[in-house]
């Protein structure tokens, strides 16, 4: 929308949005300079949810970092661990068994759907459409139940381990998951009906916060944000990990406009694609072990610990000292629901990481707030925060 008028030379007003505001998706404070209803400047002020996760890792064994990682993007708990485990496994030079890879994909794609449903619900709610939230949470709840089945945890299943998984899938999981997969396309239509052609929704999103493909790349965007601007890039397809190359799926792209509505469409389509991947993984799920057969990485079975000295020793060492990757550094990124989630880990050969740097998509996207909001109406700021699909835990870490 090229109707932005130059800001008249009058006195502006500085307004604090947040940090405690329902539409800021966590504790985000945006310092907005307003000239009437028009935004002159929008500075996101972050750090309210900084927990020092990266620093905490330096005093923990690699395994003890996992519960922290769960809480980086808390709407996609296990996906964070996915990236972290892959990074450490790359450092160790190991690959987890096929079954574990498939199960990881299952958990990741379920989480993606859950995360997108949450985005859809809150984004809609922020802009005045309350119903999508209820529908979205209906299906999200089913995913939470599935998470609960595998490990007991709902938001933070803590199911992945370096070298594989904590345990195999429980009985009945595959059937229940399949049921979800079968029903999901129909449910999806409910959301689609609510918003996609909704005139108010379109008024609030079409043409709001546009960014071209080139600009999106320059801003370092990734994931649905970049694809919403037409950047054809998905790590699952372009840099496959954990057997993603085994599955057929498409990478949905947005319209040329690169606006909030385009990004809405991308995320809606992505849910269907995730469902497609899920169907394939559940159908093709191979039999076999769920963790690598290396006593230096995987905990021995508990009954062995009580009877076999080698198992006891390995258990003791893994718990007390932890796994010890060789000295070196590694970067591993995955396609998280919000974009590229990368882990840069430096090992000094000891049981604790020397440095862990987490490249989170929310942080990168949030940088563009000022660019997207300047010149827009104040009400658009709510749409912008919503479309960025940020989680402040993911920004601050």
């Amino acid at each position, binding site marked *: 929308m090229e109707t932005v008028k130059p800001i008249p030379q009058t006195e502006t007003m500085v307004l604090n949005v947040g940090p405690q505001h329902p539409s800021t998706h966590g504790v985000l404070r945006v310092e907005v300079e307003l000239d009437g209803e028009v935004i002159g400047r929008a500075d996101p002020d972050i750090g309210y949810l900084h927990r020092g996760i990266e620093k905490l890792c330096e005093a923990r064994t690699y395994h003890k970092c996992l519960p922290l990682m769960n809480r980086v993007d808390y709407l996609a708990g296990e996906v964070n661990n996915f990236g972290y485990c892959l990074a450490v496994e790359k450092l160790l030079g190991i690959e987890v068994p096929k079954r574990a890879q498939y199960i990881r994909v299952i958990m990741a794609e379920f989480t993606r759907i859950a995360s997108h449903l949450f985005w859809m619900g809150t984004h809609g709610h922020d802009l005045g459409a309350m119903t999508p939230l209820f529908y979205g949470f209906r299906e999200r709840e089913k995913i939470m139940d599935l998470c609960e089945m595998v490990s007991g945890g709902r938001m933070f299943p803590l199911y992945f381990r370096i070298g594989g998984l904590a345990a195999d899938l429980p009985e009945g999981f595959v059937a229940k998951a399949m049921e979800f997969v079968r029903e999901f396309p129909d449910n999806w239509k409910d959301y689609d009906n609510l918003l996609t052609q909704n005139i108010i929704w379109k008024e609030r999103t079409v043409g709001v916060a546009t960014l071209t493909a080139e600009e999106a790349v320059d801003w370092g965007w990734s994931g649905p944000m970049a694809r919403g601007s037409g950047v054809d890039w998905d790590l699952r397809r372009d840099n496959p990990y954990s057997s993603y190359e085994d599955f057929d799926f498409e990478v949905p792209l947005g319209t040329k406009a690169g606006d909030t509505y385009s990004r809405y469409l991308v995320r809606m389509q992505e849910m269907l694609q995730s469902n497609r991947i899920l169907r394939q993984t559940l159908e093709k799920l191979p039999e076999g072990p769920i963790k690598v057969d*290396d006593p*230096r990485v995987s905990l021995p079975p508990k009954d062995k610990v009580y*009877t076999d000295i080698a198992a006891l020793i390995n258990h003791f060492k893994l718990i007390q000292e932890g796994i010890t990757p060789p000295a070196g550094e590694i970067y591993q990124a995955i396609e998280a629901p919000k974009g590229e989630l990368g882990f840069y880990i430096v090992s000094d050969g000891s049981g604790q990481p020397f440095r862990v740097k987490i490249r989170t998509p929310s942080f990168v996207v949030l940088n563009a707030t000022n660019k997207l909001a300047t010149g827009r109406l104040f009400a658009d700021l709510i749409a912008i925060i919503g479309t960025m699909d940020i989680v402040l835990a993911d920004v601050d870490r």
Partner: protein
Amino acid sequence: MVNLTIDGRAIQAKKGQTILEVAKENGIFIPYLCYHPALKPIGSCRICVVEVKPGPPRPLPACATYVAEGQEVVTNSERVLAIRQELGKLVLINHALDCPICDKGGECELQDLVHALGVGTVDYEAEPIAPNIDYVSRLIERHPDRCVACGRCVRICRDHVGAMAINFMHRGYYTELGSGLLPLDCEFCGSCVDICPVGALINKVFKYSARAWEVEKTETVCSFCGGGCIYTVQTKNGQIKRVVNEDTVLLCGRGRFGFGVVEADDRLKTPLIKENGAFREATWEEALALTAQRLQEIIDAAGAGAVYGVGSPRATNEANYLFQKFFRAGLGTNNIDNPARLHYMKAIAALAQVFGWPKISGVAGPAGKKAPFTSPYTVAEGTKGQGFSFVLGTLDELPQADLALVIGADLTPEMPPLGWAVMKARQNEAFKLIVANPRQTKFDRYADVSLRCKPGAERLLVAGLIKALLAANPELAPAVTAKGWEEFQEIPKKYGPKEWANRCGLEDFHAFEEAARLLLAAKAPAIIFGTELLGQDKGEQTVLALADLFLLIGHPGTPGSKLYPIAEKANTRGVCELGVLPDRLPGYLPLNADNAAAFFGAKPPAAEAGPTLVEMLDLLEKGDEAAPQALYALGGDLVRWLPHRSRTEKLLKKLKFLVVQDAFLTDTAKLADVVLPVAVHAEQEGTYLSSGGQLGVLAQALSPNGVRPDWKIICDLAGRLGFKMSYRNPAHIFQELSGLMPSWAGLAPKLALPCPAVASEINGEFQPFDVDISLPGRRPLALIIGKSLQHSGSFTTHAPSATLLVTPGAQLRVSPDDAAALELAEGEEAKVISSHGEVTATVKISADLPPGVAFLPEHFGEPAANELTLNSNLVRVTIQKA
């Protein structure tokens, strides 16, 4: 140099190195279990196998294979890795499932190895063996079911400690390590515990009190002898849990188990003031104010000369330096001495007569900024040194000697590190050992020649040796440039060979001839002597004799060929070098030295020497005008350690005012008017100068809990007497004192004096010595007062020092013949009577003693050995049933 490749990498190595050593140096990982850098390899575990070309088709153990030119070594081939895994499984075949309760868990080399090898499960089965766990032995617990039969404990005990207490028992699968199915009865040094890769040997004091990863580590210096071992104190929740030597593993029993003294129940926690004959607890302010007031009154009435100071071999260099500064620059008197007067200073005085007092010239500096505890002076190209300090050997060079004459010293109890150095020297096959003692000691078993003389006859032995040397080579000329050789030859000529032998108490001259033959053949002979000899009233004469012998056969230019007098306590050498002496300034400078004024500050330099400790007591006895009225003792329990206890006690009671600074209410402190509690080694910073001249830096591992380090007390007291001394910390004091001592040029933490870069010119003058060895009195037995292995002074005799489990009290050792004649049985109480007092002690019959000689350790308050003595650690006694 040898060129070889390891895993394809071209590597240069020194000839005689093993493949494992070279790989470690180059950062190539080869796992091992039975190897330890401090020990000779035996290649028993075979975990370190590598493929070697050219070589036999089977893999070879890297720890026991030497590098050779053109060798190609592969450390990680599939075959080798498979062999290691399988060997790992075999080691584990019958290993106890004890990791969760095993003390080694978390620092266990077997755990590390098994995990690193990737052994996931043990798929062998073996006949279970009922473990024969030894819970009975003191201090050390043995779990054969955790043993991997690497033999490290056997090797360290045999080759380094020299106790030979542990050995392999049975064969093959049934092999275990033990002490012959009996409880351990050894030196209880615990080195086997720390060298054990697994938890087969456990430190009972440490057991279940902390995990390896929970402790905080502080590197500091051991304070239980003059050896100056640097060890790591491991603390948890502000308590010492154990101490370990992370370098060579070796520590002695009192070093490893004696730390409990820090939290002894009877440690002083607050200052004490005596009122109406009884002590009451006081605040620091009260105690210091009272001390200052009383000293001031005495100084005002009778002058500064009325105050006498006794330095302490337990206190740091910094505290002792401030102590002498307080007396010299604060009061303007030389009225100070230290308890080493009774032993170590006798050696110094004699060596100074023969080799001259130390002089150093041409040092560079002082430089402005230096690392903490580093001398600001450096040794330059033209630095020259003279005097006795350049014939004193360091502990590190002793193993390079090819002969050691150990005389008048029971080496291990007096200074365990010296014993380890001799054991290390023994690894050289050409090394010869001559041991000369009135009683049999540990090192007699390793001696090529043992000379068993009468108590006190050590210098006659030396005269006999010189006679034998001259008999073997009449043309013999002194090896060291020396004056007076012609005149000196009169001494050996006094008697014939047979007569010398008889006077020493030997049957014939043959042993002398044998010893002389070894001495003549030696290229780097060392002479080691200890407090048992120095404590005699004529100890100085014996050291003269030894110095004369050294002039004759010593090669001070050759490493190792030096004199090794034993400075008994942690800082005995330091307290002497820092001039806590009535006649010498810091650095052994004479009182009339050019820069003497620097030590006296604003006061006029006192050119007159003060009375020595012994003279001071004589003055007190005579009631002389020059006798002190007040005494300030910086530790140093005079009543306990000076001979003739009842006299010392009587004389100290004559003082108007006595202030004692000590960690315990010692026998001397009980007589004091004010007692000031001080911090012990692990609670303070500072430095010690070891017997071998090494500078050890103390680091604070514990909070002092209300007591204060010596230096702070001295500063406070000096300030109250109008002499302001303010220092930030011990490093600040060290900076000042080392700036005044060019003789410490080049000294830095862990380095030893003298600096090897100094060009030393050693020459001497033969000094005649007294050959009269008669002991006064007619009583039938000669009693030697000496040291016990588990104790250091009285320090370790305070519960809960764990060494008390091994040696809970003093036992009167009597030879079997004497015991039979006196009808004494082991464990009976016996009365020991000398002309000066009597004590009662428990009898232990000991075959180490020749008939007519008895032995009593000095450490305990009951029986107090010095009740019996007059002026020497030798005394004639009568022993009878109590």
